[in-house]
């Protein structure tokens, strides 16, 4: 596959690994947060960490929209799906996430709710056209990569005067999450959760551009490298971060120059701005309530806002007390630090989203990396 396979080449990987080993300075710490769940997934799937020196520690960030969706919002989707007039359309990633009482969309479907898996918001729109006597609700999740497609769907529904289509909007914003981590109490304490640099999400950045990160680099003096998702991209980006740290620089660098620009996709940004506005606050699983971190549908498109169309109430639901997803999402803990990991919390019976979403830190670790830390598991 062109532009994919070349960036997975093993020989180039060993050369890059050597460059990283040579660049790492003894006594210097390189704790790098890979913000995006897709990067976590790639690191584990290809075994990138096997090629990194011990001084480089990857910390898993909150960039997994499935993981950070609070239970209470999933409960709203379940409530909608339980209505006999509703067809709820969802991305595959959300289907197995447990809501309140351990009920997932998949389980609800087994109990009679009409829930359909879709690959795209456009599919939900098409379903609405085909079934004019049913209410079709699209369960929208995702960061800035996934938001523009939802915006297009709503705009199209508006233009066509579709009377039976609406969206339950849970789109969240990357910069707000990054700031939240940098501003967290742990981060402010010197010596606790040191994050020396960020691997930024390339696909989000195709939309928002690299300029969106400039204020972190300057304001918090942390280097950011916008990294592609192929394993060679990740390694090149790690090398770039290591060199920035060595040089004492804190810049925004773009590794994914083949698709990311400084301004990003302006057309997509405009479409998003037309349909959505920022919520003053939104609860993130693990991070708590974060200001200016999520989107809601504008008044002009209120007819397509499931929250205004249906009587829905958001009730905040606390996590299982022993579940460490919150700490893991903030980079304070590893999956193996959680008392439930690989015992009561497994992909078959997940206690929290970090395990059930395939890009969650715990699922990635469980799927790909568990055998590495057997001594740790045996001890605990």
């Amino acid at each position, binding site marked *: 596959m062109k532009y994919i396979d070349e960036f997975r080449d093993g020989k180039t990987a060993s050369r890059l690994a050597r460059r990283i080993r040579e660049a790492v300075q003894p006594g210097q710490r390189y704790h790098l947060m890979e913000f995006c769940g897709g990067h976590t997934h790639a690191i584990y799937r290809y075994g990138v960490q096997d090629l990194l020196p011990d001084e480089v520690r990857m910390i898993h960030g909150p960039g997994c929209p499935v993981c950070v969706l609070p239970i209470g919002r999933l409960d709203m989707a379940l409530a909608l799906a339980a209505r006999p007039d509703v067809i709820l359309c969802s991305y595959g990633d959300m289907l197995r996430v447990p809501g309140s009482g351990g009920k997932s969309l998949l389980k609800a479907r087994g109990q009679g709710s009409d829930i359909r898996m879709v690959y795209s918001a456009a599919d939900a729109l098409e379903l609405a056209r085909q079934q004019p006597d049913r209410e079709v609700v699209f369960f929208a999740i995702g960061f800035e990569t996934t938001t523009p497609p939802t915006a297009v769907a709503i705009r199209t529904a508006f233009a066509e005067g579709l009377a039976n289509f609406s969206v339950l909007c849970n789109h969240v914003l990357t910069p707000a999450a990054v700031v939240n981590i940098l501003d967290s109490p742990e981060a402010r304490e010197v010596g606790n959760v040191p994050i020396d640099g960020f691997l930024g999400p390339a696909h989000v950045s195709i939309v928002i551009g690299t300029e969106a990160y400039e204020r972190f680099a300057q304001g918090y003096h942390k280097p950011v490298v916008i990294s592609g998702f192929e394993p060679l991209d990740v390694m*090149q980006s790690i090398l770039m971060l290591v060199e920035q740290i060595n040089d004492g620089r804190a810049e925004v660098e773009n590794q994914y120059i083949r698709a990311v620009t400084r301004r990003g996709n302006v057309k997509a940004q405009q479409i998003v701005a037309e349909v959505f506005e920022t919520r003053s606050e939104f609860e993130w699983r693990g991070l708590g309530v974060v200001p200016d971190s999520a989107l809601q549908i504008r008044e002009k498109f209120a007819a397509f806002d499931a929250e205004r169309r249906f009587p829905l109430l958001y009730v905040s639901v606390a996590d299982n007390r022993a579940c460490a997803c919150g700490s893991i999402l903030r980079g304070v803990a590893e999956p193996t630090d959680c008392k439930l990991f690989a015992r009561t919390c497994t992909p078959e019976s997940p206690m929290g989203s970090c395990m059930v979403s395939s890009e969650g830190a715990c699922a990635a670790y469980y799927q790909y990396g568990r055998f590495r830390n057997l001594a740790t598991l045996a001890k605990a």
Partner: protein
Amino acid sequence: MCLAIPARVDALLDGDRALIDLDGVQKEISLALLDGVGVGDYVVVHVGYALGRLDPEEAAHTLELLRGVSAVAGPTP
């Protein structure tokens, strides 16, 4: 935000849509988020929409950097 794939535009279709091709697998996607896409262009596809173009020159440049002695791309121009 994550699962986006670079694919070649094989044909332009009505209503801002295109047929993309990845090693013989073809899928219809939306071009609503991009202007001026032509047959033969490579686009990055996410959930059925093209998010951006992939620049073959920059891709080649990245590969050269990866394979060369230095792997530093430098700050964004």
